[in-house]
C-alpha cells in the first residue's frame, strides 16, 4: 500500500513540472502541421489544423469525443492510410520532411514515429518477441546480443524490466493491463523513434496503472517527442507541457498547458474545461 501511495505521490510531484512551463515555447519544433484536412468518404473530419509540436516535450490533444483529435494523431504516422476512403490534405512536416510526400516510405516514417494505442495490443507472442519484433523487421540488431540489449534497455526505459525479467518467454498477453501497455511502449521505443504518439493510452487502465504510465511518460519526455490524446483533462494537465483543444474537427486553441487550463482565450475551451461541453 505504501508503495502504491508512493507511486501516486511521485506522480503528483511530477505534475509540479520539473520543466519550466515556458521552456516549451523555446523548444525546437519537431512536427509542424499546416492546414491539415481529413475526409472520410464525403464526411469531413478535420478542418484546416495547423499546429507546431515541440521537441522533447509532451503535447496533449484534448476535446470531446468525435472532435478529431485521434484522427489528427493518426495523420502524423499515416495510420489513416489503412482506413478505406480516408483522404488527407494539407501538410505535416517531420523535421522538415513532408510526411505525405509520395516518395516517402511509410514504413520508414513509422519507424521514426512510434504509436501506442488506446487498448493495450501486445502481439500474441512472448514478451521478448514483442519488443524484439520492431528492431528485427527494421534490421536494427546485427547480432543476437545486440537484440538482447535493445530488448532489455527498451523494457528498462518502459519501467517494465524488473517486473518481467524472469519471464521474458511468457506470452505478452499474460501480463496485466497496465503492464501490457508498458510493454507496448517498450515495443515502440525499441525501434528508436523520434516521436511517440499515444492514443488515449490510459483509457483502459485503472488509476494505479494510469499513474505509473503517466510517470513513465514524464520520464520519456527527456528523450522523445510525445503527443498524447486524452479524454482526461487532469491527465493533460499532469503530463503535458503543451495542450491543444479540438472541437468538431477544428483546432480551437493551443498553447502552454498551464495557460490553457488557467486562462483559456476561447469560450469553448473554457466551457470544456469547466465541464459544460463534453
Amino acid at each position, binding site marked *: 500500500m505504501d508503495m502504491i501511495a508512493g507511486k501516486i505521490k511521485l506522480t503528483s510531484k511530477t505534475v509540479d513540472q520539473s520543466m519550466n512551463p515556458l521552456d516549451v515555447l523555446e523548444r525546437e519544433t519537431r512536427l509542424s502541421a499546416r492546414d491539415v484536412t481529413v475526409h472520410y468518404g464525403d464526411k469531413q473530419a478535420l478542418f484546416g489544423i495547423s499546429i507546431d509540436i515541440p521537441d522533447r516535450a509532451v503535447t496533449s490533444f484534448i476535446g470531446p469525443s468525435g472532435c478529431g483529435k485521434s484522427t489528427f494523431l493518426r495523420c502524423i*504516422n499515416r*495510420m489513416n492510410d*489503412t482506413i*478505406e476512403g480516408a483522404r488527407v490534405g494539407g501538410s505535416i512536416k517531420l523535421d522538415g520532411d513532408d510526411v505525405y510526400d509520395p516518395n516517402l516510405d511509410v*514504413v*520508414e*516514417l*513509422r*519507424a521514426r514515429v*512510434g*504509436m501506442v*494505442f488506446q*487498448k493495450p*495490443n*501486445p*502481439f*500474441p507472442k512472448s514478451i521478448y518477441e514483442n519488443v524484439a*519484433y*520492431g528492431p528485427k*523487421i*527494421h534490421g536494427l540488431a546485427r547480432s543476437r546480443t545486440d537484440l538482447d540489449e535493445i530488448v532489455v534497455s527498451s523494457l528498462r526505459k518502459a519501467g517494465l524490466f524488473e517486473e518481467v525479467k524472469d519471464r521474458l518467454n511468457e506470452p505478452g498477453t499474460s501480463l496485466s493491463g497496465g503492464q501490457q501497455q508498458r510493454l*507496448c511502449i517498450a*515495443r*515502440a521505443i525499441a*525501434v528508436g523513434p523520434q516521436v511517440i504518439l499515444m492514443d488515449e493510452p490510459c483509457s483502459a487502465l485503472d488509476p494505479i496503472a494510469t499513474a505509473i504510465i503517466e510517470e513513465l511518460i514524464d520520464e520519456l519526455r527527456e528523450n522523445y517527442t510525445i503527443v498524447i490524446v486524452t479524454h482526461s483533462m487532469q491527465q493533460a494537465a499532469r503530463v503535458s507541457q503543451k495542450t491543444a483543444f479540438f472541437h468538431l474537427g477544428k483546432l480551437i486553441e493551443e498553447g502552454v498547458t498551464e495557460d490553457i487550463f488557467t486562462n483559456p482565450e476561447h469560450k469553448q475551451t473554457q466551457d470544456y474545461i469547466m465541464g459544460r461541453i463534453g
Partner: protein
Amino acid sequence: MTDTLLSAASPGSRNREQVRKGLRRRHRSEVLFRWAGILSIVAALGFVAILFGMILSKGMPSFWQSTLHLEAYFDPELIEGGPQPQREDSNSDADYQRAYSNWQRAVTLSNWNTVVETAIRAQVPEFEIETGDLLDLVTTAARFQLRDQYFANPDVLGQTMPVSILGSANTDNWLKGTIDRSQPDARQQLAPETRQLADQFLEQGIIRFDFAGHIFTNVDSRSAPASAGLAGAFMGSLYMMMVVIVLAVPIGVASAVYLEEFAPKNRWTDLIEVNINNLAAVPSIVFGLLGAAVFINYFGLPRSAPIVGGLVLTLMTLPTIIIATRSSLRAVPPSLRQAALGLGASRNQTVFHHVLPMTFPGILTATIIGVAQALGETAPLLLIGMSAFIANIPSSPMDSATALPVQIYLWQGNENRNFFEARTSAAIIVLLGLMLMLNAIAIFLRSRLEKRA
C-alpha cells in the same frame, strides 16, 4: 411526505403485478422452447444412431469371411517346371534369367485347380461331388493364392502344407444365411452337394470365419468377388486428396488473403466475392462435366486418373477454403494489424507475421472439412471415368484408378447382391472411419495450435 410516498408506491406495485402476470407466459414459452430443442436433438441423434447401427450391423460381418483350412499337397506331378532353377557359377546372368522365367511360366501354367481340388477332397474322401461343384466352394482366386504361396517358398514341392483358402462369395452367402436357405435348388447359386459340403465343413471346423484382411490389401475383382478389396480405391482416394491438399490449400489461402487484406474494395472484388459464393453452390456433377471437358478433352489428361479427379475436387474445395479462411481473417482483431503497422511493419509483414498465424486453426479446420467433403464426393468422379473397373493399385496419380465412394457405388450395383450388400456397408465403414480419423486429426491439431497461440 407520506402521501407522496404512497402515491409513488402504488404505480410501482401495479407495474410489478403486470410483470408477474406476464411471467407465467414467458416461463412457459421458455420451457416449451427448451423441450423443442431437446426433442430435435434427440431426433437427430436417433437418426444418426439408426444410420450407424444399420451400416455397422450390415457391414461388420463381411469383415469376417468363410475360409477353408486345408492341407495342400504340392504334387510334383501337377506342378510343372520342377524345382526352382538355382544360380550356378557356370551360368551367365542371361541364362539364369531365361531359366528362371521359363520355370515361372511352367509353374503358372500348371493345373493349380487340381491341387485345390485334391486338397478339398482329402478332407472328405467318401463324398461324391463333381469337380465344378466342388470348386464352387472356394473363390476362383484360390489357385492364384496357392501359386503365389508356392512362388514365395518353392521348397514345399512334394510336401503337404497347411493352407487357408478363401471360400467363394456364394459359400459365404450360404453359410451366413444372406441367401434364403429355404429356396428350391433351382434358385440356389450352389449345387446341393456343394451346400451340403459347406455345412459339413463348417461343422467340422474346416471352414472358419477368419478376419478378411484382404479387404484392405486386395483390389476390386469381378471374377473372384470374395477376394475383392478396397486397396485400389483407397490409393485412388489418397492420390486425389494429395492433389486437393497440394492445390486447394495454397490457392485458396492465397486468394482469401489477397481478397481480405490487400484487394481494394470495388465493383470487381464484389463481383469476385459473389462468384466465389456462387461457386460453393454449384452442384458437384457440374464440376464433373467441367473436368471432362477441360482437363480431359482440352488438356488431354488421362481418363479415370486421380490427377483429374483431384483437380475437379480442388475446384469444389476451393470455395470452402476461401470462404472459411476469409471469415477467420476477419475475426482477427484490427488492433493486431494496427500494432504491427504502427511499428513500421509492411502490409506483407503484418499479414504473414501476425494475422495469418492467428488464422491457422481456422484454415486447418476449413481444409479438413473441405477435404472430407471431397473424399466423399462421387458424382463428378463418375463423369471423368473413375467408375471404370480397375484391377490395379495405381502407382501414380496419372494411372487409372477408382475412389472409395465410387467403389461403394460400384459394389452397390454388383449383381451378386447377397454378397455385396454387406460389402457395400463394409466399404462405407472404411470411408466413415477415414473421415472420422481426418476430423480427429483436425480437432487435435486445432487444439494444439490454439494452445500455442
